[in-house]
């Protein structure tokens, strides 16, 4: 038994010793990726490199990320803006990004892009690769990414475990070994889509607000109020067919408005704006394409400026 223990230790010790440095190398080089994890590393790197010193932050899911140009908002309102929207993530993980951002930054204003889905819960974690480089020993990641059938407790505690089987991420990391370190993105979190209309979905469905996620949102509102950060809730445009597809759309919008009212927040509602009837501005019934996003960003900037002149 002694011989076995000695020999197995000899075999395992190099693995244990190298685990952390290898994890560091993989994480650092993976985060340099321009395109892996659907460009989300740009925003995460901006957060961790403290590149976001803008006064106005947009948070939301893809309806923020692909539909709001911070450049147009800046031009219209005169306030520096950054888009922290997360593709495919509902509020719980938007809040994770927010908490990470708040460790070293603080805006004056937050525009929370709300929609039918943002208080619902996804099964699993979409695009989990975006979290890989930053997850080790991160308590916030552990709190919000566990118990979602993607990460285990040990993924946050032991180096390299979370990279097990992440073939694409490891290969991407290796390819980036000789690439320059990240220097900050020029997109400011905005990634519009140039796709044309490609959605023929007509199967109606209902969406459920998860009480647990709603509580997280109310907690977020309270924290912002305590820190003097002004929140504005915005419901973006959706193509008119969404009224028939999402059966309980109006009741969810009413619930969102009720949250705004109860918390004394302003709510800008684009759910019935003129843009909603123009299919050429959408690529599916819930997402504007680039042309639509530019028009919407301009409309939003004007609304923010007019409605909140005193706020700004």
């Amino acid at each position, binding site marked *: *038994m002694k*011989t*076995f223990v000695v*020999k*197995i230790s000899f*075999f395992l010790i190099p*693995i244990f010793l190298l685990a952390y440095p290898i994890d560091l190398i993989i994480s650092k080089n993976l985060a340099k990726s321009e395109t892996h994890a659907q460009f989300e590393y740009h925003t995460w790197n901006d957060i961790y490199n403290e590149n976001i010193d803008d006064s106005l932050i947009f948070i939301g899911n893809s309806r923020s990320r692909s539909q709001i140009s911070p450049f147009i908002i800046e031009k219209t309102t005169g306030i520096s803006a950054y888009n922290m929207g997360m593709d495919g993530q509902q509020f719980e993980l938007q809040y994770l990004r927010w908490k990470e951002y708040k460790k070293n930054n603080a805006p004056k204003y937050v525009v929370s892009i709300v929609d039918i889905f943002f208080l619902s819960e996804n099964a699993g974690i979409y695009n989990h690769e975006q979290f890989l480089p930053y997850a080790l020993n991160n308590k916030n990641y552990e709190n919000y990414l566990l118990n979602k059938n993607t990460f*285990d407790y*040990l993924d946050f505690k*032991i180096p*390299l*475990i979370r*990279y*097990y*089987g992440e*073939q694409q991420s*490891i*290969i991407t990391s290796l390819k980036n070994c000789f690439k320059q370190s990240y220097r900050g993105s020029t997109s400011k979190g905005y990634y519009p889509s140039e796709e044309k209309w490609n959605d023929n979905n007509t199967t109606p469905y209902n969406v459920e607000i998860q009480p647990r996620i709603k509580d997280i949102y109310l907690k977020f509102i309270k924290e912002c109020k305590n820190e003097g950060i002004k929140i504005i809730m915005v419901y973006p445009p959706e193509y008119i067919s969404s009224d028939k597809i999402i059966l309980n759309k109006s009741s969810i919008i009413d619930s969102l408005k009720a949250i705004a009212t109860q918390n004394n927040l302003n709510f800008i509602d684009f759910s019935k704006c003129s843009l909603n009837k123009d299919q050429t501005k959408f690529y599916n019934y819930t997402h504007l394409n680039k042309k639509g996003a530019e028009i919407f960003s301009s409309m939003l900037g004007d609304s923010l400026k007019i409605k909140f002149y005193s706020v700004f």
Partner: protein
Amino acid sequence: MLFNTIYFSLFFSCIFFLYWIVLGKNRNQQNIFLLTASYFFYSCWDWRFLFLLLFSTFLDYFSGIQIAKHFDKKRKYWLWLSIIINLSFLGVFKYYNFFISSFSEVLNTFGISFSPLLLNIVLPVGISFYTFHGLSYVIDVYHQKIKPEKKIIDYSLFVSFFPLLVAGPIERASHLLPQIKKNRTFNYTQTVDGLKQILWGWFKKAVIADQCAVIANDIFANYEEHNGGTLLLGAICFAFQIYGDFSGYSDMALGTARMLGFELLKNFNFPYFSKNIAEFWRKWHISLSSWFRDYLYIPLGGSRTSKLKIIRNTFIIFIVSGFWHGANWTFIIWGAINAIFILPTVLKSEKTVDKSDKITFKSIFQIIGTFFVTVIAWVFFRSETVSDAFYYIYKIFFNFSWIDYRISYILLILIPLFIIIEWKGRNDNYAIEKSSQHTWLNYLFYYFLVGLIFVFAGENQKFIYFQF
């Protein structure tokens, strides 16, 4: 708790060290400890079905004692009681919905409307395996091949030993019980050998099987959109998936048991290098095919009977074997296809069957031909419905053109590498059993395997045989 997870590694590490260091001198304590660990292991899957496992264990334990105690009709009574109750549980959990739906379809064909009450129940993990453990024990006691086990702990460990509990191999009491009752001492060579087999099994499951699964699942899910060449690729990937998955699991089970001082029955013997279907079935899922041979085929007369009965018996074995795998007509047809292809060899006399290991052009041709037949049969095993399977095969043969599917270059390197390693080690218990004389070279190879597993482990797929 899957074998190829860090949680199992931690679990087994604790078991291993406590077993040998703390309890190494006391066999009874070791057995109690292993039994407790096995029940804990099983509870991690679903603690509710632990009671079913316990019931089956006590039933067979008690039946074995009663069978040996009596010399009259009561022996048969206890035997059939055990068989009927065990098979009833298996029948209800696994086959009730299939039978009642099929019955309903037959009635509907005759214009009789019947809406059956279907059960919404989960299949207990490992029920097919531990049921057959128990049955083989009871039948062997009845035929006086073994004496009944009086110690409940030892018998329970035979049924529930965690390396083989959820997906075999299906052990025989005459093989495993003596090992449970024997004092076990730590053996360095045996332990290292077990660890190597676990490593190889992990590689087969995590890299080969799970990588191939991604392609196979995608092609089978969208088979209508692909041409025959791509469908053939999908079937070949499934063939590698199921082999890597099941033999990989078996290797991990055997390796784990070996590290605890037990030698389990070999379950796979490089079946894809077989020259005919009969040889394939001597090398694939050996514990199941030998179980059916000993407890079904031979009692029916086996091969020592008329040709008509041989054909009948062969079809019964393979159809039952197919049915054992799942409650679907696809498995039954899969079994029947294998029966059709094995018949010529079964009907040949033993003297004329070529069992030589010489590699010739003829043998290579036979190996490729046998592999192709098993690939076509696997289409039925994998497909959701019989019509899907027929259409899939139709397209392979009548819509064949070059593959229109993008395969990763990683797989194009890994699969040939895997085949070469398996070929090189085909005369051993597992492919990497024989080590180099140079320790540094061995370490390098093991680090290489660990690296491959770490990087190329596919999206974690469930073990296929857990659903049986």
